[in-house]
Each structure stands twice: as structure tokens, then as C-alpha cells.
């Protein structure tokens, strides 16, 4: 090859590589090739060489076929020798891939066992899937400041650099928990508990999606794992351990509390909420929802998504600010929660007005015979605009 051609080739491939990397740098939040935790990195270290080997073999086969097409085209040559094969070559071509695969197999074997280890766990979160959202239940772990169990949903908060073990199960059908930047996926199967290791190197919001087909709104069953610095995590825990405070009398929010007690508390728990007679208001989702659970809303505004992480609680501008924040500032921005001016009023109101219109669910009271009248999802509550105003005001106080 002449030097000129070589230079052109080098230039072109250099350009291509740059374009490729520039493309990668701001890719989809669920990119599987940008690991951000040790488990995902372990997987990536294993898979990259496999992809490379596969790529090379693919190119070799394609080149061989193309060579044949060009070289052995019928140009009136004599009938080729009627050979039935060359056993030595055949055996060689059987052993060669076997050896390559044996090599890959050894590393695969080791990695499978590494990724299933549970002995080095530093923190446990029980993760429960149901149609179509995730519940996170943090058992009491005093050494991490979690003195009482914490229940939240949609977004799972973990301290950075901590080996977290998820214990997954499901309340209805099979779901699958997957945060591509942190680890591969693991199915949450009803009646079984499966473990998944998770840790993040840096603070940030890591997006994921349910990846086992789970019915009507499978596409809308999303989740995020939010990694916070140890201090920020402690602050988050401290906030989660508090109960909701009742809004001041004569405010719109106080009226909203009344609406909540009338309607929402049938399924949604708010810790600390009291009925008019002063007794605690206890949600009874098991009477109304097939899965027997609904998201706990005590600290709704500390998360920035709702309805199974399908919608943003933050307005677009504020969302971009938090999600695009650097690893140094993301923790503080996240902990600020959803402030008055950042609240995504449009979507929240739409949801309160008619939830099943926003996210397909089995919530038509006329079609619940198969579940004995229990909903799968949130029904249209028939709230008036007035009620919605009040509710939004109340929900905004659930920091």
C-alpha cells in the first residue's frame, strides 16, 4: 500500500473513531457499554473482548465469502474437482473455535460466580415489583443510620461506593430490575427472592427500565437508582425517617389533606397522617388493588418522578438541571426535592384527573371480574378541578 493511501485510511479511520467516541459520550442513559459501577465494569471487561473476537470472526467470514464471489465466478472455467472435503482441515476448523470458546468459557465461569457473591454485602434493600412500579423497602440498618425501616418507590437511593444487595421479589407477575450502568438485570419473580449486587462509583441518577414483559404498561414501568455521597445519603435517610406534618389550618393544603383522607388514603399511605378524630390513617391497598400495595407518598416530593417513574415530578427545566448535574453537585440538587416552582403541575394534574388515560392500566371498574373487583393500577377517581387544586397543594407539602 502506498503511503498516501495509508495516510488517507489512517485519517478516515481516525475521524470515524472520533465521531464514534463523541457519539458515545452523550448517549442514551441506559447505554450498556458505559458501566458506572464495579459489577457493570466486571461485565464490561468480560464482554468487550468477546465482542471484539466476534467482530473479527465476522469480518473474516465475510471477507472469505466476498473473495469467493469475486475469485470463483463462472468465467467458463473447467468443471472444478469434485472434492468431498479435507478431513484434516475440517477437524482443524472444529478445534479452533472450540479452543477460542474454551478460553471465553473460563473467564465467563469465573465472572458468573463473582457476580453472584453476597458475602461482601454492606447494605440491603428489598425490592418488590408490581404492575407497574417498584417498591423499595430498606430494612433497619443502624450502622447506615437507618434506624427504622424506610419505604419508598420509583427511585432507589444508595450511598456511593457501597456494595448494595437487592433482594427482589414480586407481588403479581414477573418483572425485572435493570440499571444498565450498574449491573445486568435480574428477574423479580413472585414467590421467590433473587439477589442482585449493585454499587455506583460516583453520585448520579442512573436510569433503568423493567425488562420482563409484565403486561399492559410494561413500557411505562421505569425506575432510577440515585447514588448519593455518604453525607448526602445520611441526610436523605434522616428526612425519610420523619413523618409527614399536617399543613397549617385554613390553607389550601389543609383542605387537600381532607381530600386525601377521603380518597387517596384508601391505597396510599402517608406516615403520620391522622384522621379527623386524631387516629392514624392507615391505607388498605390490599382491599382495593390486586397486588395489595400502592406507593407510600410520605416523601413524594423528595423523589423527582411519579407513577412508576413514568412521569417527571420536576418541570423540564428543573429536571435538566438535576439530571445534567455533575457528580459533585447532583446530590445537593437531588436532595432539594421538588420545590413549588419546579413542580411539573401539568403531568401531576393530568394524572389526578384521569390516571388510566395517561398510563394504560386495568382500572375500569366495569372490567374487574377476573380480579374480584380489585384494580391493577390507579383508577380515575372523578376528582373535581377544585379537589385537584387542593390535592396538588397538599402533595407539595410531602417533602
Amino acid at each position, binding site marked *: 500500500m502506498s503511503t498516501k493511501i495509508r495516510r488517507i485510511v489512517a485519517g478516515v479511520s481516525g475521524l470515524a473513531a472520533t*465521531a*464514534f467516541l463523541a457519539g458515545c459520550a452523550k*448517549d*442514551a*442513559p*441506559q*447505554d*450498556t457499554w458505559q458501566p458506572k459501577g464495579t459489577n457493570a465494569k466486571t*461485565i464490561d471487561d*468480560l464482554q468487550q473482548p468477546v465482542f471484539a473476537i*466476534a*467482530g473479527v470472526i*465476522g469480518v473474516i*467470514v465475510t471477507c*472469505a465469502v466476498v473473495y*469467493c*464471489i469475486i475469485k*470463483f*465466478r463462472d468465467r467458463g472455467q473447467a*468443471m*472444478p*474437482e*469434485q472434492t468431498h*472435503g479435507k478431513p484434516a*482441515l*475440517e477437524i482443524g*476448523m*472444529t478445534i479452533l*473455535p472450540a479452543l477460542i*470458546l474454551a478460553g*471465553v*468459557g473460563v473467564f*465467563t*465461569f469465573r465472572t*458468573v*460466580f463473582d457476580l*453472584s457473591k453476597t458475602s461482601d454485602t454492606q447494605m440491603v434493600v428489598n425490592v418488590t415489583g408490581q404492575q407497574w412500579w417498584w417498591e423499595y423497602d430498606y430494612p433497619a440498618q443502624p450502622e447506615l443510620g437507618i434506624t427504622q425501616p424506610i419505604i419508598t418507590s420509583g427511585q432507589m437511593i444508595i450511598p456511593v461506593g457501597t456494595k448494595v444487595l437487592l433482594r*427482589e421479589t414480586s407481588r403479581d*407477575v*414477573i418483572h*425485572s430490575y435493570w440499571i*444498565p450502568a450498574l449491573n*445486568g*438485570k*435480574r*428477574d423479580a*419473580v*413472585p*414467590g*421467590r427472592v*433473587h439477589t442482585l449486587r449493585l454499587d455506583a462509583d460516583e453520585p448520579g441518577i442512573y436510569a433503568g*427500565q*423493567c*425488562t*420482563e*414483559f409484565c403486561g*399492559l404498561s*410494561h*413500557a411505562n414501568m421505569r425506575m432510577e437508582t440515585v447514588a448519593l455521597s455518604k453525607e448526602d445519603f445520611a441526610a436523605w435517610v434522616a428526612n425519610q425517617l420523619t413523618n409527614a406534618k399536617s399543613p397549617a389550618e385554613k390553607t389550601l393544603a389543609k383542605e387537600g389533606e381532607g381530600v386525601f383522607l377521603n380518597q387517596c388514603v384508601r391505597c396510599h399511605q402517608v406516615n403520620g397522617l391522622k384522621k379527623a378524630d386524631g387516629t392514624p390513617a392507615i391505607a388498605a391497598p390490599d382491599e382495593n388493588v390486586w397486588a395489595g400495595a400502592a406507593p407510600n407518598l410520605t416523601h413524594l416530593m423528595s423523589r423527582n418522578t411519579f407513577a412508576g417513574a413514568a412521569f417527571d415530578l420536576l418541570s423540564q427545566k428543573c429536571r435538566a438541571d438535576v439530571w445534567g448535574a455533575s457528580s459533585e453537585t447532583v446530590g445537593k440538587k437531588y436532595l432539594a426535592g421538588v420545590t413549588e416552582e419546579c413542580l411539573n403541575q401539568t403531568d401531576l394534574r393530568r394524572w389526578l384527573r384521569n390516571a388510566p388515560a395517561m398510563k394504560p392500566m386495568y382500572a375500569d371498574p366495569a372490567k374487574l371480574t377476573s*380480579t374480584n373487583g380489585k384494580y391493577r393500577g390507579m383508577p380515575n377517581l372523578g376528582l373535581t378541578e377544585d379537589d385537584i387544586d387542593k390535592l396538588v397543594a397538599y402533595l407539595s407539602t410531602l417533602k
Partner: protein
Amino acid sequence: MAIIERPVTTQGVEIAPPATPSRAQGGFKRPVSTTGWKSWLFTVDHKKLGIMYGVMAMFFFILGGLEAVLIRLQLAAPNGKVLSASVYNQMFTMHATTMVFLFVMPMAAAFANYFIPLQIGARDVAFPRMNAFGFWCILGAGIFINLSWFFGGAADGGWFMYAPNSGPIFSPSHGVDFWALGLQIAGIASLTGAINLIVTVLNMRAPGMSLMKMPVFTWLQLVVQFLLLFAVPVITVALFLLSFQRNFGATFFDVSAGADPLLWQHLFWIFGHPEVYILVLPSFGIISEVLPVFSKKPLFGYPFVVFSGAAIGFVGWGVWAHHMFASGLGPVSVAVFSISTMAIAIPTGVKIVNWTLTLWGGKLRFTAAMHFAIGLIVLFTIGGLSGVTHSVAPSDTQQTDTYYIVAHFHYVLFGGAVFGLFSGFYYWWPKVFGKTLNEKLGKANFWFMVIGMNMTFGPMHILGLQGQPRRMYQWTEARAGEGFFNLAFWNQIASIGSLILTLGIFLFIVNVIKTARSKERAPLDPWDARTLEWMTSSPPKEHNFDVIPTVHHLDEFFHRKYEQDPVTHEYKQIATAEEIMADQEAHADKHIHMPSPSYWPIVLAATLPVIMIGVIYSIPVAIVGGIFLVLAMFGWALEPSTAPETDFDPPASEESTKELSPLV
């Protein structure tokens, strides 16, 4: 021959009129029509049945293809509004079900039915009535499953129908009932077909055709029939459990009653993985015929291709759990199935090497059939290699249930199975219909399909690695990302690709219509072929061969046409196909017996959908259907023959030595 009944005539042979059926213990007199619609409805001729299988499969291919286009239109842009969530879920479930059970399997059966008897020099299959029964079953199954669209919605649990999402609580429509019961009927078709073809191949080969002189297509189809024979009962059991759960209150997958939903996954994939080879091996067989013919060389390493096919047939049973790497099986199972999955890549790789080496040093003619065959080598290699990446279980936990998997299996099944079938269409069309498909249109057909397919499924590798899960009725801008690999752009490309692909299929249909209208007859041996099916007229006579050939070589037909010069080692043509045909006609068997048509296959098959509808809606209807089923079985068993008693004399001693060939 198995059921030898009706004497037929051939050129140069004394004409004997078909005997008039006189006895009717079976309820009906036996039909004798050889023309008109009755000759199709009641036929037991493997060639007519092959064509009927093909027409039916093609219809469902178009149906499944339209479902796919709707899916791609929905996903072309974020928050697609073409289909609702519910309809989308039905659509992808039925797309897969249709393509797997109602297109690729019956189309492979079409080729098997038509060409196995011809390739082994037989006059029909071993059980001709059962053959017809199989066809009517699969047709009934296809119609039955699709009826659900009109009865409250089709199945919506994905073709893998994981429990408990498939249960009566989570899928309250009757779609899953239609799906499960319809697949039971399809399973009956597969089982009867498998038994029939296994017996045919093992017992009815022409004299001299040992197993290692058998054409590769027949060989790989034989492996497929064994896979069906053992895989279908597994899905049958699973479907029974599902139906009992849904229709009769059983609790096989009910967690609150102590069930483990993973039971379904194991049953489904123990069937489901061999099923993959059931889909692709027939196409491997087809191109293993096409490549040698258009390279003017025998298949490189014939025994290796045969044994690797058999090896796939065995190892294919030990890899099912690789569909379950994320299911929570525990590290030991995952590691073992990871290794076994890598192992199956070896025999598959052997095939690719052998095909490439068949081309090597050949004299290649790039006909449309050859285009598709070469396309298969490259596209299947891509699919196979992405398959190797998910045999690495930890890597698979990132990829499984994403579009990367969708890309993988479409390269394997579209680039593999479908390209092979299209290669078969172009290669064997002149044999079946006596007319050659237009080559120019055929090549345009190929290029549209190859470009369309790569544009549709190629970007799905990127989509999957970027984290787009499958089976989502919408994707959102918020997770689409930016830059070169953003999901929006590649989803759009994939959707445009699907339209180009559709155009390619449309060109094929145009080609078929154009060819049907053309008056030009195909030459007897248009491709200078190598195997026995070309050693008869096109289309073949009802009895296939005027005289059953005695086989001396692998690629017998080639060796009858060409001879190697002992001095120069060059091949010289010693006979043309026409000369060989003329010789056959001159020595035609004097008295050929062929099975008579029968009413019973279609009657018996028709009772099955009735029973299934009864299971869903009303048990008395099922009982009535069941009574008719039993009656039809008796009718079948007691059906009289149309031939005189003398035709049932044991074969003459000379004939009996010809009946069975040595196995090796």
C-alpha cells in the same frame, strides 16, 4: 410403498381405469377425483400437500409481516399512537406466533413434504392420509388462533407466554385460550408430520441409497423431525397446564397455591430452544443443496455437515436455560448453560466453514437462489456471532430482553431461516410448477430484502446495547439520548427498513404472479442439478418416478450426467437430463400403485377446532366435537380401498429386495 391402492397410468404403460369404490364401511365411499377442487381437498399426494402447506404458510407470512410493519410504524417515533398498549401487546405476540408456528414451520414442512420423497426416490410418504391430516390440522390451527382477533382480542402475553402473566387474572380475554388450544392443534400436525417423515426416510429410500448417500436437505429435515418428535410433547404438556389453569381452575402457576412460575419457563424453553433449530435447520438443508449446484462442486465435507447437524440436534437439548440467565437460576446453572451454549456454536460454525469452502474453488453462477444462499451464510454468521456474545451469561444479563436480542434472532431467523426458504423458492420453483421464476425480479427481490433486513434489524443491535427493552409499546424521548447512537434516529431507520423489506416481499409476489401467467416452460434440468428430485418431469407425475432409480452415489443425478475421464481427470458430460428421462420412460414400471384420496383427513382435522371452541365456551360443544372425533377415527380405520384384492398381494421377491436400502 406403504398404502398401495390405486393403479395409475403413465406414458408407455397400459392404461387401467381406477376401480370404482363400492364398499363403504367407513361411512363414505372413497373419493377418486384427480382434477378439480376435490382433488385438492381430499388429496393424499405429498406434492399437492406440499403446495398447500406452502400457500398457507405464505398467507400467514404476509399476515405476520403486516403485523410487523404495524409494530415498526408504532415505534418509528417516540410515544407512538398507531396502536394502543393492549393492541400492541397482542400484535407482537401474534407476530411471533404467526411467524414461528404458521409460517416458518409449515413452510419448512412444505419443502419437506414435497422434496423428501423425491430426493430419496420414493413415490409418496409412508402414511399419506396422515400427511393430509397434518396439513388440515395446521391450517385449522392457524385459522383458530387468529379467530381470537374477532372474539375479544388475541393473546397478549408474548409468544413465550410467561406465567403468571398468562393466567386468567392478568390476561382476562380469551386470546391466550385460543393461542394455547390452537397451538395444541398445530402440535398434532407437527407430531404426525414428524413420525410420517421419519418412517418415510428410514424405510422408503431408493435401492442403494444408504444414509450417507442421502441428500443433505433430507438429512437435516430428518434431524428436524426428530427434534419435533421430542420437543412438541414438552410444549403440549406446558399448554395443557396453561389451559387447565385458565379454563378449569387449576393452579399449576399460581404462586399463592405454592407454584413456582419458573416451571413454565423451563417447560417452554425445553421446547423453545430445539424449536429454534427446527426453524433454521430446514433452511440449512436447502442452501446445502443450492450452494453445491451453483458452485458445480459437491458439498464440502458432507459427513461433517451431516454430523454437525445431528450434533446440533443433540446439544440443542442442553442449552434451554440460556433464555433464563436473568431469571434467577443461581450461578451453577447459569455457568453450566453458558458453557453448553458456547459448545453449540461449534457445530454451527462447522456448517458456515463448510458452505464457504463449498464456494471455494468452485464455478459460481449467481442465480437468485444462489444470492439468497450466500446471503444466508453472511447474515446467519452475524446472528450466530451475536448469539455467542449472549452465551457469555454476564454479558447476556445486560442484553437479554433488549432489542439486541431482537436483532440477534432476526438475523438468525430472517437472515437464516427465511433467506434459506427464499433460496428454496427460486431453486425448486421450476420443479414444482414447471416454470422458472424471473431471475431479474428475483435478484431485485434479494437486494430489497437484504438491504431492508439489514436496515431493520441492524440498528436493533445499537438500540439494544443502548438499553431499549423489547416488548414496549412506546419508547420515550427522555431515555433516547443524544449523539450518533440516539434511539430516535435508529428506531426511525429500522422502521424505514421494514418498509423496504416489505417492498422486497412484494416483488416476490409480483414475480410469482408474473411467472404463473407466463407460458414459458422451464427446462427439465434448469440448474444442472445433482440430486434425484431433478431426475423426473417438472412438475413430477403423481407417482414421481416412472422407475424407481437405483442409487450408486451421493449426488446420483450428477454422476449419471457426468463421468470423470480416468486419464485427464476432467469431467465429461455423458448424458443430458432429457436422455435420462427418456430412458426412464422407456423402462417405466408396468404397474404402479398409488394411494387413493380420502375424505377422512379433513373430516378428522375439522373436529379439533370444534372441541377447542367447546373447551373455551361450552363443554357440551366439546363433547359433541369429541364424539365426531371418535367417529371419524373409526371411519378412517375402516375406510375401504378402491383397488382390487389382487393388488394387495405381497410384493414379488425381486421387488422386496429393493424395498429396503442398507442404512450405511
